[in-house]
Structures are given as C-alpha cells and as structure tokens.
C-alpha cells in the first residue's frame, strides 16, 4: 500500500453527497443526509450539534471506521470509499489519530504499552523511545508502567492524547474529549490538545458541545438531525 503524504493536496478531507442510514426494526432510519465537506490541511474544525444529531456518525465515516450508504470520501488523495476494510485500517494507522470521550485505553496494558501499540502495529523498531518521549511531553513520565485502572480520568486522557499523536498523524479526530472530565481537568486537556496540534501541524476535527471550545477552532460545522446547517 503506497500512501501519498503530499502536503500539496489542498483539501485533505473531501466528502461529497455523504449519507448514512441504518436498518432498524422500524425500517430504514436515516442518520446523515447529504453532507458535503472540504477541509484543508492544517485546518481545525469544530462539529457541534445536539445529542443524536449525527456527529459521531459523521466522524466515524470520515475516519473510515464505518462505510457510508452513499457518497464519496477521500483522505489526503486516497479514495476511502473505494477501499476494503484492511485498506482503510492501513490508512487509519498511517494518517489518523483518535481521541474519545471515554478514553478507550486497553485496560490490560500499561500506559507505555498503550502508547507504543499503534507504532508496534506497523513494526516500528523505535516504538518505545517515541512513546516514552510523548508520555513525557504530556507530563506522565512517572506513570509509564501504570495501567489505566491506576490512573485518573485526566491522566487516562493524556495517555490517549499521547497515543493519538505518537504516529504523527495528519488528521486528528476527537469525539467530545472532555465529555467525561470535570471542567478544570477538561480545560488542561484541551490546552494540551491544541498545543500538540500546533506542534505537529495536524488537521483537527473536534466534536464538542462547548461553544467556547468550538470558538477556538478555525471553523464550526453545525449538525441538526443529520444535516449541515
């Protein structure tokens, strides 16, 4: 699999006529209706909207975690909608980082092992050095061998941030990253997120409820019942 990392591709994310519906016991349920989206490299975007408006569904499509019912997505020049699952997995590993509301660390692994994992999946020999450096960057150099259970929510989310940035992704998706944290801890995590984003020149797609937080991004997309408004 050859992956283009040409920054010259102006629109790093292109989505055309994107729609998603799911089959439920009551029939076909539309979740997203005809989304068109162009995001430039290095841009930061906030996606806002009420609970259930389809935000998570949208980023799951953009990140290649799920397939749309209709429409086209291209990431960095790769047509995601033309790929099979293993192809999309390779794209995720190379281009994308994730931060989730509920952290999603592997409970059986230590902080260091959690951060090393994405690098190890590509067979990177320097996984340990890189992971240690990033954990130090997020202020957890003294918690390397702790498992998620032994860490606070804020600390867990820092580990998740380190894991997201360790592969130097081109695009970072964050789905309500402060949703499970108190406001003070949340604020420090967001600061850290934006700092890391700056340092790495990453394109940021941030899902949030928080208007203040949204305003820190360059552009805001509002979703209502599956449509952009």
């Amino acid at each position, binding site marked *: 699999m050859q992956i283009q990392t040409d920054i010259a591709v102006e629109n790093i994310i292109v989505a055309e006529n994107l729609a998603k519906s799911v089959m439920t016991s009551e029939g076909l349920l539309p979740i997203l209706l005809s989304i068109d989206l162009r995001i430039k490299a290095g841009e930061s975007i906030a996606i806002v909207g009420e609970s259930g408006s389809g935000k*998570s569904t949208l*980023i*799951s499509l953009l990140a290649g*975690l*799920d397939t749309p019912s209709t429409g086209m997505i291209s990431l960095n020049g790769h047509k995601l909608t033309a790929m099979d*699952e*293993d192809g999309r*997995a*390779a*794209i*995720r*590993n*190379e281009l*994308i980082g*994730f931060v*989730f509301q*509920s952290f*999603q*660390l*592997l*409970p*059986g692994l230590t902080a260091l092992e959690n951060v090393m*994992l*994405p690098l*190890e*999946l*590509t067979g990177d020999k320097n996984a340990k050095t890189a992971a240690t450096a990033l954990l130090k960057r997020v202020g957890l150099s003294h918690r390397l061998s702790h498992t998620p259970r032994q860490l606070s929510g804020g600390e867990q989310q820092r580990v998740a941030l380190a*894991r997201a940035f360790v592969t130097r992704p081109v695009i970072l998706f964050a*789905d309500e990253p402060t949703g499970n944290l108190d406001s003070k801890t949340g604020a420090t995590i967001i600061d850290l997120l934006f700092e890391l984003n700056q340092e790495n020149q990453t394109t940021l797609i941030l899902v949030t409820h928080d208007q203040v937080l949204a305003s820190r991004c360059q552009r805001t997309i509002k979703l209502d019942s599956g449509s952009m408004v």
Partner: protein
Amino acid sequence: MSRFNLAVKLLWRDSRSGELTILVLALIIAVTSSTAISLFADRLQRTMTEQTADFLAADLVITSPEIQPSSWSVKAHELKLDEAQTAEFSSVLIENDEMLLASIKAVSRGYPLRGYLKVTGSDYSQEQTMYQGPEPGNAWVEKRVLSALKLKLGDPLTVGEKKLLVSQILTYETDKQGDFYSFSPRVMMNDADLQSTGIIQPGSHVHYFFQYRGEAHALAEFNRWLKLRLNPSQRIMDIHEDRPELGSALSRAERYLGLSSIIVILISGVAIAMATRRYTERHFNATAILRCLGLKQRDILWLYGCQFIVLGVLASGLGCLLGWLVQQALFHLLRGLLPQHVANPGLLAVFFGFIIGMAVLVAFALPPLLRLKQVSPLRVLRRELEPLPTSAWLVYGLAFGIIAVLIERYTHDLNLTATLLGVGLLTLLLLGLLVYGLLRLAGKLLPYMGLTWRFGLQGLLRNTQASVSQILAFSITLVAMVLSFTVRTDLIDNWHKQLPENAPNHFALNIFPEQQVAFQQEMLQNGIRHSQFYPVVKGRLVEINNLPVQKIVSKDSQGERATHRELSLTWAEQLPDENKITAGQWWQDKPIQAGLVSVEQKLADNLKIKLHDQLTFTAGSQQIKATVASIRALDWDTMRPNFYMIFSPGTLDAYPSTYLTSFYLPEAQKNVLNTLVKKYPATTILEVDLILKQFKTILTQLTQAINYLLYFSLLAGFTVLFAAVYATLDYRIQEGAIIRTLGAKRSFLTKIHLIEFGLLGLIAGILTVVISEALIYSLYSKVMHIDYSPNVYLWLLTPVAGSLFVALAGYSGIRHVANKSPVAVLREL
C-alpha cells in the same frame, strides 16, 4: 403468579444471549450422562435381582462336585420342596471327522424349576418356549454344534459311548453360565442317559447342581438345615458370585462409568458456574433498576430463581431423554456381556438424572446468583458499587457436597469416597497451582515477545483463574481418555508380546493317571512340545492354623477368590521352572518328607500365610493337612501350568488325581486334536488362543463404553471453554474495536485469538501427557506389572491435537469479534 410470568418473560429475553445457551448445554450434558449411567445401573440391578431365580433355574441351588446325599432329598421332600438336578462337564464330540469341545449338561425331570428354555426346530423362525429338558435318548444342541460337526436335526450324536438323537436346537437356557472358560457350545441331554455315556468316573471333572423350588419359609428352613451339613466343596449359589461375567466385570464397569460421569458433572458444573457468574454480572444494572422500582431482595431472588428453575426443568428434561438414548447405546455396546433379556428401567432411575440436573444447577449456579440479591439500588447512581462476592465456603461447599454424594452412590464405600475426594481435591489443587505458576512464569516472558504473541498470551493471562479451570477441564478429560485407550492397547499388546513364539497355546486337563503315559507318547509321536505333566487333586483351602479361612480373607481380594473355589493341588519333586523360592526351602531331605506344602507368594501375602503355618484342605469329603515349607514367586503370565499350592510327594497319594499339561500346537497341526480327543474322551482341552480372544473382546467393549462417556466430558470441557470465552466477550469486542481503530487488520485479531486458544490447548495437551505417563508408569510398574515405555505418539499427538481443536473451537466462538465494526468505540459500551 404474575411474578412468575414476568420471570418467564425475562428469561425468554435473556435466552438470546450466549451465556444461557452455554449454561443449558452444560446442564444437558451433565444430565444426559448421569441419566444414562443411572438407567444403565438400574436395569442391570433389576435384571440381576428380578431374574435371580431364572438365572439359577430354581429358588435355591447347591453346587457340588459329588452327587447329592440322599438325606437332602428326604429333607426337601419333608419340606414339600420340588427338586431337580443337573450335571455339567466338558467333553469332546466327534462326528463326520469334525471335532468339538462341548459343554454337556445332563438334566433331570423337573428342570428348569424356574425360568424356561427356548428351542427351535429346523424352521428357525419358530422359537418355542419349553419348561422341561430333552426326553431320554434325545439331545438338544446349540446351533454352533450343528455347524461345527456338520450335523442336521435328526442326526445321531455320540456323547462318550452313548448315541443320542439331535431333536431340537437350543436357543436360550435360563441358567447358562458364561465365564471365559465355559464358552464351549452346549449339548443338553437327559440325565437318565448319563450313566451309559461312560464319561463319569471317579476324579472326572463334573459339576452337579441340586435345585429346589418351594415356599419362602420352607426354603429358608432348608437353607439353614443345609448350611450345617455342607462340606467345603459344596456351596449355596449366589447370583453375584456365580455369574462372574455379570457380577464382577459389570459391577466394575458400572463403577468406572459412574466415576466418569462424575467427571462430566464436575466439568459441566464449572461451565455452569462460569456462565452464571457472567449472567449475574450482566444483570447488576437491571437489578439495581428493579430494586429502585421497589422490588425487595426476596422478590429479586424469586424472580431469578424462577428463571433458573424453568431452565433447569427444561434442560434436565431434555437431558433425561438423551440419557435414555445413550443408555440404549451402552446396552448395545455391551450386549455381548449381558443376558439376552434385560429388565426395564424403573421410573426412579429416570428421575435420578433429573434430580442430578437440578442439584447441579443449585450447587453451581446458586452461589453466583445469590449476588444479585445483594445489588444495592444505589447502583443506579453509582455504577462502581459492586455487590459482595458470595462466600467461598458456599461456592465450594455445595459443589464438594454434591460430588461427595455422587461418589458415594457409585462406590458404596465411605472410606473409598473420602479417599477419592481427598486425593482428587489435592491433585486438583496441586495441578491448579502448577498451571497457575506456569502461566505466571509465561507472563514474565511477555516483554520479550513479538506483538502478536504478546497479545495472544495476554489473552490467557487476563483471567488466570478461568484459564486454569479450562486447562484443568481439558487435561482431566484427556487424561481419562488417554488412560482408558492406552491401558487397553498395552494390555492386549503385552499378552501377545509375552507369549513367545511356540509358547503353549493349549491346556489338556483331566488326563487320567492310567492314560498319562499313552498321552505323552502320543504327543512325542506328533512332535508336539509340551510342558511337564502335573498331577492334580481338586481341593479347597479351609483352615490356616486351624482357623477357618473365611474369617481371615478380606472381601473382594485375590485370597477370597482363591478360597471360594476349588484349587488345583499338585505335588512335585523338583521346583518347576520359573518358580523362585522367596522364603524357606524346597524339600531337601532324602527321602522327601510328606505333609509339606509350598505356597505361591501373592496368595500367601494375601492370606497372611507364613512359613511353618499349618494349612488344612478338603478334597471331596476328606481332609489334608500340610505345613508350609516354602513360599514361591512365579510369573503368572507364562502359559505354563502354574499352581498356588505344590505339596511334597506322597502327601496327596490317597486322593483321586488327574494329570494336566500344556503344549504348543501350530495352526497347521490342529487336526492332531482330533485324534487326541478321540482317544481320550474324558480329557478337556482348552484352546488358550480362543480364551485370550474372548477376553480381548470383553476388554474392548468395556473400554468402549467408558470412552463413550468420556466424549461427554470432552463436550463438557468445550462448554467450559465457551463459558470462559463468553465471560470475556465484552472485553474482547472492546479490545478488538480499539486495536482496529488504531489500524490493525482483522487478520491480526484472528492471529492473536488463535494463539491464545492454541496455547491453552497446548498447555492442556502437555499436562495431559505428563499426568497420563506418570499414572501409566505407576499403574504398570506397581499394579499390572507390564513393561513401561514412553509412547512417542502420545507425546506428539496429544499436544498437537489439543492445541488444534481448542484453537479452532475457541476461535469459532469469537470469530465475529474480528468482524465487528471498529465504530463500536464511538458508542458507549
């Protein structure tokens, strides 16, 4: 009632989740195997008791080597008992140049007093039930006799010197005794013709059976009267002793089958406990909400209790049905060993399996289920509030209790039960610790492994307790299977190996003294190699140092068996080959002093006979006393004549004796038997090859039946595997989703799952090999005295097969995890 409806409704909803399926499967397996065994045992028991009289052909039977004292007949007449008598002996029949060793039975008027005979005429379809034996001058024969001697109905058949007419084909004989040595086909005649056969002579080997029928109290009175008058060679028959092929082989089989069904129950129980635990944990939240809605602790227990009872009833019912089928198959497998007419099972036996099902459910599912009662309603607000775990005493106590009750039921022996439980528990504990230690050790290697292997191994280490249970479940099952298979094969191989080329394959018994020289001459002429000729006097050991031997022997021991029947007593000047003196001295005084005896070592140990002890024997109605001069060790597996008791020459001179020898006859020379038996009609020739073959069949059938049940424990092992897999399913789905979000391919997940389960199977396989080899080694060297050699195939095949099967089964249980869309990480789990 509405609560019950609610319970059923909830159950129906829950039934779609996997853990209930596992629970039900495990329960069905446990009930099926215990029902099958209980039915099997029950029908056997009934067959034996219901048909006791039929088996004996009378209410009371005395067996004796001599004819009936006339006083018995007088007494029986006084008590208004009906009488009959049979005499059985072996004789060689020759017709149309064919020769056959037949078991002749001469029956009196009135036989059979109980039960019946069945015969067919030339038209084989017409089976007729008869309540009397053949008329004088007639013979009824088994079909085998006709084909072996090229006879047809209506032909004459000569028994000894008497010509009889073959008038019927005998198809069923109520009191047929079939042990390994009496499988020769039956010829039945009237005892009025017995004298004229000329076969019955002093010292010839005849069994008389005196049979009585009458009122219960009269029989009891007669029994008491007889007991005072029996000489040691006469014995009141007992169904358990006198049908050894039923009595010992089958009761042993019943015991082994029972114990293997306990393994099935234990392993299924583990699966049930695991499944219930997961079920319980998944219902904490729902229970908290129900509690918030106002249900009391008692209501919660009732609600879930109802669900489990419904489940238990359904699963146990199905298990009973399946158990019935399995039991039919068991009888089919063992049909060669069983009487033709097997009694119907009692209702209680079917019910037993059902009760076992419910008991297993209570013992293994109740303790984890009780936790639901403890769920606090506050949990709706604070998810982390976990109810206290159930007391370990309750968890293990119940399981231990039910296993103890079951073992007792199958062994009927409290001491043995305690020993089995103690040893079993200790072994389980030690093995558990061993596996646990091994897993922890493997954990230390984690940092040095590649990513795939690390994740695979981590899967095993995540819940060490569950992994240990699974490994033990598989190992125990596999060990049982390996043992029953290996021991059988080795036992049979070993017999073949031990018999050197040209080892004696025939025994000749009942050679009369006046014929001995001629017989030996005959063998020389035909170039047949034979062993020494030993004189034999039939006698029983009755006293040791003037103490009745029955008071000394322990039940079911070699000593008991040896004192229950007549021994072949012999005398010799020289110590026979392959005998070694282990204590005392072989007679050395010249001339040799009479009244000395040399005793075989194992029997001596068993009966606690020491040098210089005074032994008393009876031969017929006379007594022989002898002093123990030496103890001998010998190898019983050689096909030479071996003796428990060898007397010094002169001791037995006063008693009627016959001679015995063994010889080797190659297949091509079998026709020599023809001439031999024609010339010596009273001589019995045993074909050892045939006896071994028969024994091999029995052994194969028994082990087959046992293996059959072990398949159930293998199935139960897989339910433990699946229960464990389901217990970790949520975690696996989450882990899979996260790893795939980070860019891992599905094949990576597949690989780590295969490695995890492959390792599980591998460890179980290796453990199996080690345990089985250790057991086989000690069994062979300590009990069976067979040469032990490690089995290469076992070492290679068991771990490979173990890891292959477990990997495939485990993988198939969670293959959909790898296919779950990674989008799951975005939804709250």
